[in-house]
Each structure stands twice: as structure tokens, then as C-alpha cells.
């Protein structure tokens, strides 16, 4: 009997290899690691949004039991500030304001949670006890808690050397062409909105352990990072001045990141530095309260958008003015989020011929803001997709037909937008039609009527979105201000008996890379996924890498692996040719088998690898032994996933509560490796998008106190806040990477908020509503229905 092995290659919904470890509680997270002789760090954080530090009295704290050391910025004079990885230039060509981001506050605190001192003690409790005994003499200063406050005349300066609080004033696009188009437009639509500030809230709080081996001089940092090599580069080169060879960064299992674990944080430098100083390992783990006040936040834009249309509804021009909150300091990638990850996306899926956007980035006395799932692209998509609905409402065009009328034609790819990007592929008509069909769009009015009979207001909303991910071509981003390359690295190590270890610079913190990447190997090399081990997250093991964010792991990291496998196959063919006494040109390879074309002669990959490692009969004059190849892959372009999301909601008029009742996503993420994982990624992203639309709101009061500083007040989406999320894909292949993949990690969070909000506005259309700000909370909706203050 010939039993076929189950197909595990590209397109198979293979169950996730890593889940047994995670679901049985045997993941190894940073806080699970304990080093011999380990001490514990507690960070004393500012209770004030803005204050001058007139003195710090450590005497009482130093006398507390178990205290090994207490450090303030006075002890860190020899080390650098936290670097920013992206430089934006102002309209006039001058560089952005880049005030110092000290590891511990120097002279001033600038947000609630700003680290002031670190206590290192033999237990976490004792470290905290001593931290509470530190007496800081604060002179409280007026705070610039919001962008409006920060830009008011006479506003307090967050940084004394940036009196305007303006980080940069940047623009993109052709202003004159936009002005001209507006002058001849039949319709001009104006839309103003705030993109609500979010707290990422990965399930695992951040944690870091510094370790130092005096016998080798090697520093090791275990950290909750999405990109250990980037942390090694930033911390080693800019903060602690440690050579790469003496600094190992390990990011073991990481429980969610969503962007918040990209950045180099002060605590990483503190524990690494302190471990060296004390010759003892030092661990720090955030509790949830610290996470709220120290993890980089997301979004927080105030925007005004204007759309010009001709009489037939064709978009003529788009003008956007955005203020983006940077928080108190520039987090690692903060400056690029509201510029090159935002304004370049304002064409969306439309042929708008002229676009002009200006963005002002503002310092405030709040936690730094940086990339959060989608990063700039959700803000652009929300602005544009709400604007299109507002335009439809104002001009009388059907909202679906208005979109269709302005879609980039399917035969127009590659398509150059007026805001820098060139889209390689897409079919927005197909994803729209498929989503309309799957959501039962045509039958909606009957559902609205049925809901009305039950006393509910039902609405439906659509968003047709696009994103740029697979970040990114190094030369392009370099010219735009990135201070690093954004290629990826993959090593394929075929062992003597044919099993495979993959070393990747991408990092999995929930995405299922150990499965997806193994499937790439199974598909190309014919190795069962059980025999493929994926190694990531350790700079001592993986040659290099830029990490995981911007939906880049497969498009960039997977492509690097694919290139490395090409090299394996090329070398394997030479070995096979030698063993089978054939010419290399006659060797064919398919899924693990080398054949001499036109004959029945063949060798399995394992036979070739054995010959490579036991080179008794081997072309040793021409070929080195061994079968291991590394590829650095630098993408030629971004990838452009897109699609259509349709949300259906019901509102209970008595309470204003909005319930999501149905959600349909049809996404073009390029070639799908594991449909089950893609479905999960989209559903997770949609959950976060629904969270932004209906629930989540980071609130600071006028004094800069964080009002939503815990789960008691910050509304994370729960299972019962969601509805069935139907996920389907329509594939057009990426034309410039070898796998044809585009990326699926962020589409859910990008496409869904405007779909949900368009549905909420649609549900309330009888109330004369044109716009509702996110999140659409019950009191907000109630106040609209009842004409009351929320």
C-alpha cells in the first residue's frame, strides 16, 4: 500500500508546530529565564507629566535591606541617549528636532512613567520597597498634555532646546497641482478627525535580563524584542559602546509585540550596563501598570482632509493636513510613522492624480508614540475611507460605486501614485465584489428593516484599503531618512542526514513562523516539516537580521530563505551530477529529489547531504564540503496587500451600545502559505481594529495624568465584543519577490476601523450624523441619538 504523506507545503493549513509548547505552558519567555546570582531591578518612574528634578535623596533607600545599588542619570554620564532610527527633514530641508532621549531622566521628567532611578536588589519586592524610599524633589511644571496644548502660544516646552514643541514640519506631493485641481472641482469635501491614541497591550509585559561574563567580557541581554539584532546594533553602537562580538541579544519566546517591542527601551540598556557594573545578572520585568506608562503608544493624529471631485465623481485631488503626536521623546521609529508609512499611503486604491500632505510632528508630555500594528497605514486608511464615505454622503453618489469609479484599473499595474509608491499588483474590483457577495451587501436593507422591528439600528460599512508592507528596499528607505537597511537574512543548514535547520533574522512573537517557514522548506526541498527546525531570536545563532514588523517576515525573511534554498539546490545539483556521473545542466530538482533528466537515475536530498558531509566520493577539487547557505535578501519594492472589509453593526438606541454583528474580510495578501495562519492573523488584526473603532482610547487629562492606565479603564476587545469574522483571500501575486507573497500581519488592523465606523454612521443615518469619532462608545452614541452631552 502506498500511503501518501500529507501535503505540508505552500497552501496547506498545517497546524502550528509551536502551539504544543505554548498551549502546554512550556514556552520560554524572558521572565521564565533566571540566571545564577540574579538581582532584580525596579524602576522609579515619574508621577508627574512635567517637572524639574531639583534633587534626589537616595540615603534612606540605600540603607534598605537587600539593596545592591541605586543608579540615577548621574551614574550614566558615560553612556549615550536612546537613538532614533529615522531622520525626517522639514519642508525647508533642515533636519527634524531630535532632543536627547536619556536612559534615566536628566534634570527633568517629561511624562508620567519617565524613568528617574533604578534600584537593584536581591528580590523584586525589596527593589520596589527601596524605590519607594527614594525622595525626589520635583518642581512640577505646567504640562503640554495634548497637541493642542503643546502648540498654543506660550505653551510649556517639553524640551528646553525645542521651544516650539515641533519635531518637524514635513510635506509630500504636488501642492500647486492640488490647488489647481481644487479650483476646477465640482465638489469639495472636507473631513476632520482624530485618530485615537492606543496602548498596544501585548499579553506578555516587557522584560529584560542583563548578564555579564567577566571571563570572556561578553554581555548578554535577554529581552522581549521583535528584533534582537536591531537592539544589539542600537544599544551596542549608540548607548553602551559595546562591540557586536561582545554583546549577545536573545529574544526568546515573546508573547505578542504589535510594534511595541520593536524599539530599544531604556530598561534594556539599564540591565545590561548594571550587570557589568555589579558582575551579577540583573532582571527587570514590567507589570501591567508600567506597561501602560512605558510601552510606546500608537496612532494619535489630528487630521483635516479635503477631497476634490469632478461632476462625475472622479477624485481630482486630495489635500491632507495632519498633526502627529510624538510623545515626550522620539521612540526608535516614531518619525517615519506619520510620514513615509502614512502620507505615502494616501492614494489608497484610487487614481487620485494629485495629492499633497503636510504633517507636523509634535512633542507632548505623554508616553512616546511609535508604530503599532499597521503603523501609519491604519491612520491613512481610516482618513481616506471615512473621507470617501463622507464624500458619497455629500455628493449623493453610492458609496460602493464611488469607490469602484475611482479604483486603479486592474490593467494599470505597475501603478505609480503621486505620493512616491509604485504598486506592483492588485485587483480591487475582485476583492470588492467578493466581499459584497460574501457579506450579503445586496440584501442588507431587509436586515436593517428586521433590526428596526426589534428596536435596533443596523448599519453596514465598507472599506477598500491598501497597505505598503514587506518593509523595505534599503536604498529607498535610506534616501527617505532610515538609518538602517531593511533587508533580511536566511540561512538554510541541511544536516548530514537531510534534516534542516533554518536560521532567520525574522522573529516570531505569535505569528507562527516555525510552521510557515518550515512549510517553505517542505515545499521547496521536500523535507517533512517535522524535520525542519526554525531558529530565530538569538544574535549568537543567527548571522544577522532586521526582525519582524511591517508584515515583512515572509515577504523579506521568507524570500531570503528561498534564495538560500536556491543556493542549496545549485550546490546539490553539482554534487548529484558528480554522484550520478551526469552533467550539472542535466540535473533536475523537485521537492527533495535530484534526477538526471530523461533517465530514472535519482538521488534524494539526504543522499546528497550525506555526500556533502562525508565527502569520500565528492568533487572536492571544485566544491567545498558541507551543505549550508546564507542569503541576504533586499526587497526591490514594498509589497501592497489590499482588499475589502465589510462590517455590520447594530446599535441599541436606549443605551447607545454598538454591537458588531458581522464582519467580512476579503484580502489580497499575495500567495498564501498557510491559510489557517492567515485567517488567524487577519482575525487578530480585525479584533484590534474593532478595538480601535469601538472600545480603545488612551486618555490623558489636562495635567498629563494617564486616566486609562489599567485594564480597569482601558477597554481591550474581548471575545464577546466581536462577531464571526469571515476571512477569504483573493490572490494577485507580488511581482518582485520570489514567493509572490505580500504579508498578512497588519491588514486586519488597517482595513477594519473605517469599515466599522462607516457602518456605525450608516446605522445612524436617520439622525443626520456625518461623522463619529473613534471609539464609538455607548455614551457617545447615546448623546448623538438623544442630543445630550456624553
Amino acid at each position, binding site marked *: 500500500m502506498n500511503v501518501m504523506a500529507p501535503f505540508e507545503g505552500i497552501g496547506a493549513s498545517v497546524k502550528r508546530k509551536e502551539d504544543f509548547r505554548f498551549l502546554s505552558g512550556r514556552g520560554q519567555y524572558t521572565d521564565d529565564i533566571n540566571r545564577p546570582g540574579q538581582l532584580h531591578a525596579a524602576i522609579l518612574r515619574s508621577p508627574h507629566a512635567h517637572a524639574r528634578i531639583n534633587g534626589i535623596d537616595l540615603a534612606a533607600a540605600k540603607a534598605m535591606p537587600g539593596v545592591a545599588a541605586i543608579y540615577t542619570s548621574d551614574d550614566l554620564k558615560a553612556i549615550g541617549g536612546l537613538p532614533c532610527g529615522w531622520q525626517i527633514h522639514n519642508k525647508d530641508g533642515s533636519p527634524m528636532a531630535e532632543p536627547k532621549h536619556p536612559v534615566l531622566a536628566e534634570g527633568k521628567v517629561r511624562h508620567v512613567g519617565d524613568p528617574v532611578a533604578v534600584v537593584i536588589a536581591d528580590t523584586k519586592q525589596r527593589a*520596589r520597597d527601596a524605590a519607594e524610599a527614594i525622595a525626589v524633589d520635583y518642581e512640577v511644571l505646567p504640562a503640554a498634555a495634548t497637541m493642542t496644548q503643546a502648540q498654543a502660544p506660550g505653551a510649556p516646552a517639553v524640551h528646553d532646546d525645542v521651544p516650539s514643541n515641533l519635531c518637524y514640519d514635513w510635506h509630500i506631493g504636488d501642492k500647486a497641482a492640488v490647488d489647481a485641481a481644487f479650483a476646477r472641482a465640482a465638489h469639495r469635501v472636507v473631513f476632520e478627525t482624530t485618530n485615537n491614541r492606543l496602548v498596544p497591550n501585548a499579553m506578555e509585559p516587557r522584560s529584560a535580563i542583563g548578564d555579564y561574563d567577566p571571563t570572556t567580557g561578553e554581555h548578554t541581554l535577554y529581552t522581549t524584542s521583535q528584533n534582537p539584532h536591531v537592539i544589539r546594533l542600537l544599544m551596542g553602537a549608540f548607548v553602551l559602546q559595546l562591540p557586536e562580538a561582545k554583546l549577545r541579544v536573545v529574544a526568546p519566546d515573546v508573547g505578542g509585540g504589535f510594534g511595541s517591542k520593536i524599539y530599544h527601551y531604556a530598561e534594556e540598556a539599564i540591565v545590561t550596563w548594571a550587570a557589568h557594573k555589579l558582575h551579577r545578572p540583573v532582571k527587570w520585568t514590567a507589570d501591567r501598570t508600567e506597561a501602560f506608562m512605558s510601552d510606546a503608544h500608537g496612532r494619535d493624529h489630528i487630521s483635516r482632509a479635503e477631497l476634490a471631485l469632478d461632476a462625475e465623481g472622479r477624485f481630482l485631488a486630495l489635500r491632507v493636513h495632519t498633526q502627529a503626536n510624538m510623545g515626550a521623546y522620539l521612540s526608535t521609529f516614531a518619525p517615519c510613522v506619520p510620514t513615509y508609512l502614512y502620507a505615502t499611503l494616501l492614494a489608497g486604491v484610487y487614481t487620485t492624480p494629485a495629492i499633497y500632505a503636510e504633517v507636523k510632528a509634535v512633542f507632548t508630555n505623554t508616553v512616546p508614540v511609535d508604530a503599532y500594528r499597521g503603523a501609519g497605514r491604519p491612520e491613512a486608511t481610516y482618513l481616506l475611507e471615512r473621507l470617501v464615505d463622507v464624500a458619497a454622503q455629500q455628493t449623493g453618489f453610492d458609496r460602493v460605486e464611488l469607490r469602484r469609479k475611482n479604483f486603479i484599473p486592474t490593467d494599470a499595474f505597475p501603478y505609480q501614485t503621486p505620493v512616491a509608491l509604485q504598486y506592483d499588483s492588485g485587483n480591487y474590483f475582485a476583492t470588492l465584489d467578493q466581499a459584497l457577495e460574501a457579506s450579503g451587501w445586496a440584501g442588507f436593507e431587509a436586515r436593517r428593516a428586521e433590526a428596526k422591528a426589534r428596536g435596533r439600528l443596523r448599519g453596514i460599512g465598507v472599506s477598500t484599503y491598501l497597505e505598503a508592507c514587506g518593509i523595505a528596499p534599503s536604498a529607498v528607505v535610506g534616501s527617505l531618512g532610515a538609518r538602517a537597511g531593511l533587508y533580511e537574512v536566511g540561512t538554510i543548514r541541511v544536516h548530514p542526514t537531510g534534516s534542516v535547520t533554518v536560521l532567520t533574522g525574522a522573529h516570531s512573537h505569535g505569528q507562527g513562523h516555525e510552521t510557515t517557514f518550515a512549510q517553505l522548506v517542505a515545499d521547496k526541498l521536500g523535507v517533512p516539516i517535522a524535520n525542519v527546525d526554525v531558529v530565530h531570536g538569538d544574535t549568537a545563532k543567527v548571522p544577522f537580521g532586521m526582525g519582524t514588523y511591517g508584515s515583512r517576515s515572509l515577504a523579506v525573511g521568507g524570500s531570503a530563505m528561498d534564495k538560500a534554498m536556491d543556493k542549496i539546490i545549485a550546490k546539490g545539483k553539482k554534487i548529484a551530477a558528480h554522484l550520478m556521473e551526469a552533467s550539472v545542466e542535466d540535473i533536475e530538482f523537485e521537492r527533495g529529489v535530484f534526477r538526471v533528466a530523461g533517465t530514472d537515475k535519482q538521488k534524494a536530498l539526504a543522499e546528497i547531504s550525506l555526500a556533502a558531509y562525508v565527502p569520500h566520493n565528492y568533487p572536492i577539487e571544485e566544491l567545498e564540503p558541507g551543505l549550508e547557505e546564507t542569503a541576504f535578501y533586499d526587497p526591490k519594492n514594498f509589497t501592497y496587500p489590499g482588499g475589502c472589509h465589510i462590517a455590520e453593526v447594530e446599535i441599541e438606541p*436606549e443605551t447607545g451600545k454598538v454591537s458588531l454583528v458581522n464582519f467580512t474580510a476579503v484580502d489580497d495578501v499575495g500567495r498564501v502559505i498557510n491559510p489557517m495562519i492567515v485567517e488567524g492573523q487577519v482575525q487578530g488584526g480585525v479584533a484590534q481594529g474593532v478595538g480601535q473603532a469601538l472600545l480603545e482610547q488612551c486618555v490623558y487629562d489636562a495635567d498629563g495624568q494617564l486616566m486609562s492606565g489599567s485594564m480597569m479603564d482601558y*477597554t481591550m476587545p474581548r471575545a464577546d465584543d466581536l462577531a464571526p469574522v469571515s476571512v477569504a483571500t483573493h490572490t494577485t501575486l507580488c511581482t518582485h519577490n520570489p514567493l509572490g507573497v505580500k504579508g498578512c500581519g497588519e491588514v486586519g488592523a488597517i482595513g477594519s476601523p473605517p469599515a466599522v465606523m462607516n457602518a456605525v454612521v450608516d446605522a445612524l443615518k436617520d439622525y443626520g450624523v456625518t461623522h463619529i469619532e473613534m471609539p464609538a462608545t*455607548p455614551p457617545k452614541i447615546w448623546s448623538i441619538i438623544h442630543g445630550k452631552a456624553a
Partner: protein
Amino acid sequence: MYDFAYHKPSSVADAVKMLAADPDAKAISGGHTLLPALKHRLNRPTALVDLSGIAEMRGISRAGNAIRIGALTRHVEVETSAEVASAIPTLAYLAKHIGDTQVRNRGTIGGSVSNNDPAADYPAAVLGLGATLHTSKRRIAADEFFLGMFTTALEADEILVAVEFPIPEKAGYAKMRNPASRYVMTGAFVSKGPMGVRVAVNGAGPCVFRQSAMEAALSANWSPEAVAGIRQSADGLNSDIHGSAEYRAHLVTVMAKRAVAAAG
């Protein structure tokens, strides 16, 4: 969490002695309010007096026209009790909708009532049914028990031992949850029975309170319509990032209406 001493008495008398001997000691039952407060270092008791070993504070029993529930009874036990289900099904419903499974498996009725969190569920039932609170030294009527936010008539060395609920003819409970914490944003517990017609409102104000205008209306006409037109004043109600006092005042009417509808 700061260090503290830990005591586990096996009788009410011993527990009271321990609390009386140390004014900074705190009684702990299910710990679902106190433990998070300790972990956040918001509370610094010298000692915890763990009541969980006191057998006389456990159990659900029917005594005549009342259901007596020991203070240590966990929410899940009230939720699944046949006695409660047959006598006061609304009480089982309320218990079933406290927090989540983990909370219901730990939290106790005595802890909830003694803590008197304005956003807790049980105080609404206690006041809305006109229960009697049995303590280590006396009996207290519900109307005399809840004094203000996190404040009750219990003295420092006094422990709630049991709650005795008169069995009503009808009762109903409805609430809107705070979307973040899932505590009560505004709730209403209504009943008609030996203690008269009662409407207790929780979540909306700093302390559970009776809504006398609604009670009068329901006494005349027990129907959802009877309360639908009665407006709660927003004066003194809670206002925060989740909703204004005016919104909560509006919800009082909505929840009262729903509670009456649920009571039938």
C-alpha cells in the same frame, strides 16, 4: 505587595479577637478586591485574617420565608444553588453575571457586601430585597448598612457572617457593564414582596441607593411602563471617562425598566 502577617482563625470569635487586637489588620475572604489592591501596593495591612477556615460562615439554607447565605459563600455556589434558584432566581441570575468564571469561583458574597464597591452587584440585591445582615455582634437592616463609597455600618472588629434575604414575590435585575472593567456601570434591582416594593440602583452613584420615585410608581402599577417616564437626577452621580453623570442617570431608568420586565 508589602509583607504582612497571616492568620487563619477557625471561628468567628477568634477572627474578631484578631481584628480587635490589631487595628491595621484586614479580614480577607475571596480576596478579589483586596489582593489586587495589595499587589498594587495601594493597601498596607499589618496582617491578613483569612476567614476561609470558618465553617459557621458557610452554606446556603432556607429558613421560613428567607434564604440565608453564609458570608463565605462563593458566587458560583449562589449561581448554582437549587435553594436560591427556586426561591429567588434573580439572585442566582445576578451571581451568574458577576465578573467572569475565575471571579465567581473565588469571590464571596460577604466580601462583596462588606467592601461595598459602588460598582459591585451584590449590594443592589441586598438593598433591593431588603435583606438583613447578620454580623458577629448584631443584625443590621440593609437600609442601615450601606453608608457610602466603600463604607458600611460594620465596625473595625465586626465581621459579616451571613446575609438573610426575604423571599420576594417578584424580583428582577438588569445592568450595563463598564466596557473596560466589566463592573457595573449602572444597574437596578427591583422587587416586590414582604419588604414592600424596592428599587435599588448600583453603579451609578458613589453608593448603592433606593430610587423612591420608582418605588412609588411601581407600588401603584407594577410594570416597565410605570418607571419608563421617571427621570433620575444626575446630581451626585458618578462621572468618568466611561460616561457622564447624565448618561448614568439615563441608564437608571433604562435598567429599572428592564429589571421590572425581567421580574415579570
